[in-house]
């Protein structure tokens, strides 16, 4: 049985965040008069999160849990596309970034026909633009701000 490495990585990330909070919390004032100060609860949360994440890690290692069967390729592609679209927002603006993201997902990831992909991507972008920009008055980022 293949060990779920992602699960172990997730537990390690939580443990690392716990350690970060412990270290930074300990550097803040911990107690003032009768009550805890700014660093006390972060320190406690950090200790607890590290302990719980390590306990999960130990249990998973002992149980030798199998990795989920689904491929990682598609979720990683979708996540990367979302990341690129968000990174492009300040430069390309909302409409172009979102349209490109939708077109990529429909046409390249899902391999849907180009015309249908163009219509779906364009229609969704236009609908969101009307709802957020026109109706709700949200100052969505524009092209080349």
């Amino acid at each position, binding site marked *: 049985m293949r060990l779920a490495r992602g699960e172990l990585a997730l537990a390690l990330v939580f443990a690392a965040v716990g350690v970060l909070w412990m270290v930074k919390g300990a550097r803040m004032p911990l107690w*003032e008069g009768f*009550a*805890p100060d700014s660093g006390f*609860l972060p320190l406690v*949360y950090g200790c607890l999160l590290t302990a719980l994440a390590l306990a999960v890690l130990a249990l998973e290692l002992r149980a030798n849990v199998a990795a989920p069967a689904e491929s990682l390729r598609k*979720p990683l592609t979708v996540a990367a596309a979302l990341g690129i679209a968000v990174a492009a927002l*300040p430069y390309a603006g909302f409409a172009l970034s*979102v349209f490109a993201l939708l077109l990529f*997902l*429909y046409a390249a990831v899902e391999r849907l026909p180009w015309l249908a992909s163009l219509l779906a991507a364009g229609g969704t972008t236009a609908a969101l633009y009307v709802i957020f920009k026109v109706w709700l008055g949200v100052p969505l980022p524009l092209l080349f701000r």
Partner: protein
Amino acid sequence: MSAFNDLVTGFSVALTFKHLAMCFAGVLMGQMVGVLPGIGPSAAIALLLPLTFGADPTSAIILFAGIYYGSQYGGTLTSVLVSVPGESSTVMTTLDGYQMALQGRAGPALGMAAVGSFIAGTLGTIGLMLLAPPLARAALAFGPPEYFALVMLGLTALAAVGSSVLKGLAAGVAGLLLGTVGIDPQNGIARFDFGQTWLLDGIEFIVLTVALFGVGEVIASCVLGSARPVAEVKHVFPTREDWRRCRMPILRGTGVGFAIGVLPATGATIASFLAYILEKKVAKDPSRFGKGAIEGVAAPESANNAAAAGAMVPMLSLGVPGSGTTAIILGALIMFGIRPGPELFTRNAELVWAVIASMYIGNVILLVLNLPLAGLFARLLKIPYRWLYPPILALCIAGVYSQANSLEDCGLLVGFGILGWLMKRYDWSMAPMILGLVLGPIFESALRQSLTLSHGSAAIFFTRPISAALLAFALVAVFAPLLFRKRAS
């Protein structure tokens, strides 16, 4: 009598055009997200949060409550027609519901599920109306130690609902930890801002909720295959024989569901499981169960709807959510500037009673929608997920950006979205993280006030009876599921 008068006031608010429209939209959306793959009520509410930001809180909470109990109806369709539970609370319905569909009786299964859900939802709302106000009144005497213990109970109870108590607790603590980012309101010290001024305001509830339940769900579900063949739906109105068989299972399921729903750390899934087991135990011929017994559909469906109403009791009266979705509704209340807890029934009586009244109205709308239109909703099952998830992602970006016009929040959306995907993939409960973020500030100020009152002695939490009892319940909430699972396995 007082509850009756309050309910009349609630109806006078809920029956206005705006609130009726919100109730209709909520139950319709709930029904749809229950049917559609890869999006549940938590994700639907998360996606709508940015759109309701700044709106009338009563309308928004009526909408969210409608999505919550409406999704219980919608999840049944997928259980019966394609043997895939739309929600975890409809798993038990699959056993007999799908068998009925294979025998050409999908219509009666869905019809009886709708009738049972309507009866259970209505009776559950009556229970909510009778139980929540006295509970809230009793809790009005709560001071800081009791609030501290309440938050502790809420977090541990919700952590215990998921598949692993340890993972749930870790997620809850991670939420509390994220709640410390930004300016400490007590003394103005900047915490965990990492030199970034945009982090001084802290991490917004909307950003984390949309990221975990919107983006995380989409990335996890984008691998879903194409739509499955769907059984035909005909003759949804139950026959006299169906009704004779299901009367008592519906009533028993309602009782079990409501009682379980009220208890923190349980939820609709356990309620439907227990209702099914109970029916099998009391049946004259238990061998019919699993082979298309209509009682096996009526009882769990009644139980999960009664549990949804029951879970609103601790949420509205104490501020302790009984499920992941009610945790998000609780966060929405705080987002609207409403403090959840015992004072909700006195300070925001109109809102609470309007929501309760809307639940009666919503159950009637759902019955009307489900009996004649079950076949139409079944067609939604034919929509492949590949058409749905790209617009959901685009809505997540627009929604999160619109909340504070912040591009940095969109960056957090991606980061927490990937975290949400991993948490879903490896079965880490996400709702406790949201609750931790939302309740973190209340928790911290209650701790500080309590210890100031007691001159630094932690004994204040154990010497005050209500606080001690709540902390004891929190311990039970953690250890009871462990024992229950050990026995079950």
